[in-house]
């Protein structure tokens, strides 16, 4: 039996869309989840009913938090995202209302970086294609595997974005003997890699592009047709950031026309929709936005979220603040 009086003691947290069990289960013991998506009276009514007690929204990277929602919550102090990307949160509206926004910080960096390296390796060395060749029984039938890879050693790999994830990928990929370079808004003094001020210059001087910057208005379609053509026929694109960083329609065309060589993507423009043209290509590796998902990462983010929720209610400074 759950003692209802003890639940009342738990501080309320607004949840707009379902969270995964990995996150919900450890948190729901410590806070009172107000689930707007389960409200019988409908979301707007639900928000109105609880407006006076809601100080904090907890959300995933797949949850839009728009200006309208924020305007309905006069006591809102903070939006806590359990994701790295906060592109679905209206940051301007938050700033206007002095609502703070926090994200997952470095909780996922290591695993996302590992996954990015894995995608890069898979595309260059044809691992997924060769694995399905074996599983389909084609190896014993044909003997010779048609999937020939390309050596990593000496390849020029350009990073779009060099935050926690980008820096970790760069360090790992450098161990394969690749030549690293990057582009960011401003050059980083302490970084040993070559800097290019524009994405186009980066693409012209590299064999592989790894996209791992934040998605903003400015970075939407940062990898467009011109960038892919500059990368060229032998070029490979890896996207571990957010789908809209790449112009997906143009990527499909470039791959179909052989204007670039291959791609590895954990993210897409309209998830969970994936352009069907990709399904028939053995030079692309597709993944359902699962780069950060390990028990270790989720433990990190649960710990950080609990700390930040407690900080909100105790009026202590927040961790991993975005706005």
């Amino acid at each position, binding site marked *: 039996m759950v003692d209802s009086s003890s639940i009342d003691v738990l501080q309320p947290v607004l949840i707009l869309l379902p969270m995964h069990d990995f996150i919900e289960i450890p948190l729901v013991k410590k806070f009172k989840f107000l689930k707007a998506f389960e409200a019988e009276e409908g979301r707007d009514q639900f928000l109105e009913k609880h407006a006076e007690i809601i100080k904090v929204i907890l959300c995933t990277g797949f949850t839009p938090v728009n200006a309208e929602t924020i305007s309905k919550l006069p006591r809102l102090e903070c939006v806590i995202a359990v994701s790295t990307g906060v592109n679905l949160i209206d940051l301007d509206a938050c700033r206007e209302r002095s609502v703070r926004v926090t994200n997952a910080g470095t909780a996922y960096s290591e695993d996302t970086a590992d996954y990015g390296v*894995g995608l890069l*390796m898979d595309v260059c060395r044809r691992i997924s294609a060769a694995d399905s060749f074996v599983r389909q029984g084609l190896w014993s039938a044909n003997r010779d595997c048609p999937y020939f890879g390309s050596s990593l050693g000496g390849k020029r790999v350009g990073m779009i974005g060099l935050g926690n994830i980008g820096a970790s990928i760069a360090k790992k990929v450098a161990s394969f003997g690749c030549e690293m370079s990057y582009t960011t808004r401003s050059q980083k003094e302490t970084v040993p890699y070559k800097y290019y001020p524009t994405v186009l210059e980066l693409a012209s001087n590299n064999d592989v592009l790894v996209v791992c910057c934040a998605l903003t208005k400015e970075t939407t379609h940062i990898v467009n047709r011109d960038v892919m053509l500059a990368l060229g026929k032998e070029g490979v694109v890896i996207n571990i950031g957010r789908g809209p960083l790449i112009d997906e329609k143009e990527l499909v065309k470039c791959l179909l026309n052989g204007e670039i060589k291959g791609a590895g993507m954990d993210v897409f423009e309209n998830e969970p929709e994936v352009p069907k043209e990709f399904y028939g290509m053995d030079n692309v590796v597709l993944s359902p936005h699962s780069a950060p998902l390990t028990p270790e990462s989720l433990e990190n983010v649960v710990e950080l979220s609990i700390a930040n929720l407690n900080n909100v209610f105790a009026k202590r400074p927040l961790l991993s603040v975005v706005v």
Partner: protein
Amino acid sequence: MENLGVLLTTPMNAYLEEQLNQRCKLFRLWDAPEEDQTGFLTAHADSIGAVVGDTKIGADAKIIALLPKLEIVSSFSVGLDKIDLQVCREKGISVTNTPDVLTDDVADLTIGLVLTTMRQICVSNRFVRSGAWKNNDSLRLTTRFSGKRVGILGLGRIGMAIAKRSKAFGCSIYYHSRSEKPETGYTYYSNLLDMATNSDVLIVACPLTEETHHIINRQVINALGSKGVLINIGRGPLVDEPELVAALLDGRLGGAGLDVFENEPEAPKELFGLDNVVLLPHIGSSTWETCKVMADLVLKNLEAHALGKPLLTPVSLPCK
């Protein structure tokens, strides 16, 4: 070397075949019907002075016995397990291989196997292509690699290159080999079982010899355990494959990434349906760049032999 008769054992590399065809007298073993290779070799025995073999068909005692004029075996591989080195030594036949040139490719692929196995990237790729993402919860937890304990069996050139890469992932590096290599700074285990017990990932990177045959047996697999991952990029017979299959099916082993198998080109069908394995058709060194370098090395060794010059990458043959 236009007078040198060269037996190519398999269609291993188009560029090498074309070069040999232009520069030597080329005999393709696969031109002969499988049941009459002996007849083919006997018919050309007087012309064949060199064998170019690979990881599939090399120069075993039977082939060598049929080729009395054989002077050199120039292998398009690092491994020498398909060449009867003892017979070569007795008959004064030189042997060359292609060391070093594929070290980096094999070490890279090893890390690729580790990441695709632990993070289940091939599974994700199949999942998205099946169209299931739309209908399904995609959140599936997989295993972290960075920072884990990596045990390397065999710390030769390839083992060292794997260690260097694993280090960039913040891993602890352990190794087991015949002798300790204190200069490396990595942790030595004189006992393979102890290393397996203490490793999250066990990477098999030693040569195949009589002593190392089935070195990964039931005990080692059990010591690695239900959360452990086995990676084999060495040779198939280093692992007792039926034991490996049983352990994976029983859940006694966490996962496996395999580039080599006991009976290539056969891989155990029982594994085809498993998500915690990655199965590759021996492509550790299969890159355009490396195969070109290997082919050039085979050609240069043959050329040096034809000109009576020192061989570039001779193999020292075992004393009796």
